[in-house]
């Protein structure tokens, strides 16, 4: 038995499939691909499949990771080819290899965010305000959190969760490239960042596209 990490992308219509449903989809895909999966032992045997960091519904990604356990000696290349032949539209295995990092080492994620506004004025105003807010000391937002077992809303300073950012404005489109906190302990969804800025600026987008480009570990390495 060996562990294999698959890096896959989620694009097009597949961005509307939730994290849980991707899990179910993959369980079936490995069956269709007839991979020699290692099965858990017990009353309800199932193949071992684990995912790195969940992606929000509606976001595109080039950096989704799935770990599986294989029995027997099928090559990585064969596993990749077989899976790609049977995956639905929008899900594609990009690379495969032995896991290097632990999923709990993930500390940040790089995003490409495209924000489309009705007018050029809106876009440049937003850009100006965003620049000002993200370079300030404090940008507070409400995030769902937990107090013991109770679910509560808590105030969070988003600035502490932004590691890097670059804003450009062309026409009615604002592009935001950013590196945001990600992982189990602290996490910032780029949609929340954009919405928080929008609420401050009182300008709202027409369309919002988010692509997750890379996952970064706490040692500042690319997760793989």
């Amino acid at each position, binding site marked *: 038995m060996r562990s294999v990490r698959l890096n896959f992308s989620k694009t*097009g*219509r*597949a961005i*509307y*499939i*939730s994290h*849980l*449903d991707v899990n*179910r*989809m993959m*369980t*079936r*895909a*490995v*069956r*269709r691909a007839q991979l020699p999966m290692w*099965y858990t032992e017990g*009353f*309800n*045997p199932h193949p071992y499949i684990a995912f790195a960091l969940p992606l929000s*519904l*509606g976001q595109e990604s080039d950096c989704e990771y799935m770990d599986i356990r294989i029995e027997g000696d099928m090559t990585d290349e064969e596993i990749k080819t077989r899976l790609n032949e*049977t*995956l*639905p*539209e*929008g899900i594609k295995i990009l690379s495969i290899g032995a896991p290097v990092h632990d999923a709990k080492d993930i500390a940040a994620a790089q995003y490409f965010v495209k924000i489309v506004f009705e007018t050029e004025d809106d876009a440049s105003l937003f850009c100006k305000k965003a620049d000002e807010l993200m370079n300030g000391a404090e940008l507070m937002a409400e995030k769902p959190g937990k107090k013991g077992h109770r679910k509560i809303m808590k105030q969070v300073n988003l600035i502490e969760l932004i590691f890097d950012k670059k804003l450009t404005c062309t026409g009615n489109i604002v592009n935001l490239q950013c590196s945001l906190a990600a992982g189990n302990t602290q996490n910032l969804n780029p949609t929340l960042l954009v919405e928080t800025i929008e609420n401050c600026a009182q300008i709202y987008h*027409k*369309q919002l596209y988010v692509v997750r480009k890379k996952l970064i570990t706490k040692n500042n390495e690319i997760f793989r």
Partner: protein
Amino acid sequence: MLSEKIQKILLEVQKPGRYVGGELNSVVKNKDDVAVRYAFCFPDTYEIGMSHLGMKILYSVVNNRDDAWCERVFAPDNDMEEKMRENNVPLWALESGDSIKDFDLIGFTLQYELSFSNVLNMLDLAGVPLYSKDRTSLAPIVVAGGPCACNAEPMADFIDIFLLGDGEETTDLLISLVKKHKEFGSSKIDFLRDAAQHKGFYIPAFYDVEYKADGTIASVTAKENAPEKVEKAIVSDMDKAVYPEKFIVPSIEVVHDRVTAEIFRGCIRGCRFCQAGFLYRPIREKSPEVVEEQCKKLCETSGYDEISLCSLSTSDYTGLQPLLNSMLDWTTKEKINIALPSLRVDNFSDELMEKLAVVRRSSLTFAPEAGTQRLRDAINKNVTEADVMSTVDKAFSGGWTAVKLYFMIGLPTETLDDVAGIAQLGQRVVDEFYRLPDRPKGKGVQVSISASSFVPKPFTPFQWEPQDTQEMLAEKQQHLMASVTTKKIKISTHTTQTSFMEGVLARGDRRLSKVIELAWKKGCKFDSWDDQFKYDKWMEAFEETGIDPSFYANRRRDYDEILPWDHLDYGVSKSFLINENKKAHESVTTPHCRIKCAGCSSNKLNGGKCDALSKA
């Protein structure tokens, strides 16, 4: 493929995966390469519709043709409907993202009466006129099939063609007819005249209905050269019928998410309350080799780890033992579970139970239907209490600690004693568990009793019977609850209002079309969802149209009354149904079709052939 307008609203609704298509094995064609575009509409949500086997079959029937493209359409949930109306986005088909009003054919499957209002809502969301008479051009033609097409009269004003019987036959022919008339440049009426000449094609506009002063039907007259009686179409040989090689694998969770194999059509039992048991006659079995091959292929192409062997009464399949023996060889190895829904208590063997428990243990459900022997005889269930006991014995000894029992209340001839009998039977099942020395240790027994309300349906021996009023049903439900004395029995019942509406629509006539339209206008949709059903709005619609719903639900019909569905021929003769009705009132049973042919005459549809006899 999805327009920007659609993409924008997708992120504003729950479970957008329901509206985008792109699932594995869905079929995408080039619209310029096909002659006929068909929007197959399921008038309920994606999760329900994607569980439906008929849609999978017909999707293949159409998409196997190079000249046609079938796409899927489901009823959008309320949040999506709101966004669609707000942003002027008309209803689209999942595969192409194109608006369905530009399709050649819009087809609905009518699986239950309470989906009728959704049909209207979907037509409206598509931007298609509701009334058949208001759609004057050749496209789109609106058709409907499924079990409720057997009495489609309440929907008669909205639908151009009802397709009666097995869709494999009628759908293929329909596509060819539309293609021909499109090429020819026919008018809609010319197309319909031609369609009416084919088996299974019922064009309601070609039949004039006259009423008597008492509200019953005086006459139904065919015109435009349409046949006096429209006979349903059937698949003659199940081994040769189209069956999908691939199932669309939903990307999000749906209700029944597994391989489904149909093992035979029809039923040998003749339970008098059961519409499906009469509608799908004569019996046609698929051979075990064909079933197994189809299952294998479907598992490979879908990746599913569960197979459901599906029919109206799975343990009556003559090839069940050899099929299971052969299938278990590979399903066990590949960790695939086999589920057998619709088992009977009188032929559930030890061997069968062992086979069911091989990979994962599924739940066990049996349907005695009535609480006393007298009533079980009246409905011709042909199950004894000894059968029930010996089955639960086997189940408990085999390690099961929970069983589900299905019953109906409101059956013809039923008394309060019969209702109390349900609780008593449940109690005896509980007692049986504790009597068994080899019962599973460490766990208590759980008996779940589901008591639904009986709704008389067309083409059954009970089609003349009055449905119990809501007051009677409520009283019986309370009596049932009061008769249970242990916490080991759990009872669930249905709301009587829903059953009443189902009863009205099931045996309604075409005067109900305007009630349905008005109820829909008042906001009725998703009527089969308890949380969305608006009984008051329906009652307002009856009030305002001056139509008495109890005329349809609670009235006893005479044998010689013209029933709204009498001009449709589903094979089973009226004299047979009358005879069965009389026997019910005498609590006399009719043996099942393999013991003795009951003479329902449905075999005339298949050249005198019926697998109840040939495979006895």
